């Protein structure tokens, strides 16, 4: 799954911004929003070897993608 913006990212880089979500439902909603917009994304599901239970969704990465589209999806989230 390669986005057309990959060559641009490779050449020019991108900002990485860490934000926080309050619940698994919020993470799911963000993932489906990313899917709807056709953005590359990945949701990490923890194996549960340590602190959190198995199959816990912990981190969602979205992008690289144009900032204007990403802001529509994650603009309301607070910085980490």
């Amino acid at each position: 799954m390669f986005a057309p913006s990959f060559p641009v990212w490779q050449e020019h880089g991108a900002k990485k911004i860490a934000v926080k979500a309050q619940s698994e439902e919020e993470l799911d909603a963000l993932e489906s929003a990313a899917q709807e917009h056709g953005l590359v994304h990945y949701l990490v599901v923890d194996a549960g070897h340590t602190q959190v239970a198995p199959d816990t969704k912990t981190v969602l990465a979205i992008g690289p993608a144009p900032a204007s589209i990403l802001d529509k999806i994650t603009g309301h989230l607070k910085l980490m």
Partner: protein
Amino acid sequence: MSWWGLTAPIALVAFYLFQRQQRSREQRPAATAATQSTNAAAAATAAPAPVRASKSASKRKAYKGEQLKMILVVRNDLGMGACSRRGMRERRGSSIVARLRLTAFVRGVCVYRQGQDVRSVLPCSRGRAAGDPHGEGRAVPGGARHAGALGGTPTARPAAVPGSIGASTHALCASACGTCLLPPSPCGRSMARRRSP
């Protein structure tokens, strides 16, 4: 010689000198203004002075398209402080960004899929982060500092899962590449142990 004959030439010379001084005083501001206006005109017509800018800023400026972003959404209700800190560190660490790009974009696919050892590519792999700068799966004395300098988690704990990477890095890498097969390491494990007495 009379008194008048003596003082008249002196008075004339003094008057001449006074006039000359006055004339030069009047001409100096005008000349300065003229010079300044000439300089300003020359500066306006010449190319604009180069503005010192960082390399990345100039690169961004050179790219006329829309700016790209990567967003890392971390769940805040799990107490994943270590994970988020790692995410922040990665955000700052340009070497990790560069290596992530390498990982995702070498010949278009993740290098892990090409049969290469990912531990030699990712500085944030658990092996390196645990004080093993070369990713050999063993702790190296003093390696923790080196791992920290590389951007990994500075902990002296031996590698639990050599070759695995942090959840944040895995998410970013997998999002970019879409083909990452590495298991994310249990997030925050080493940091939590480090904090406990």
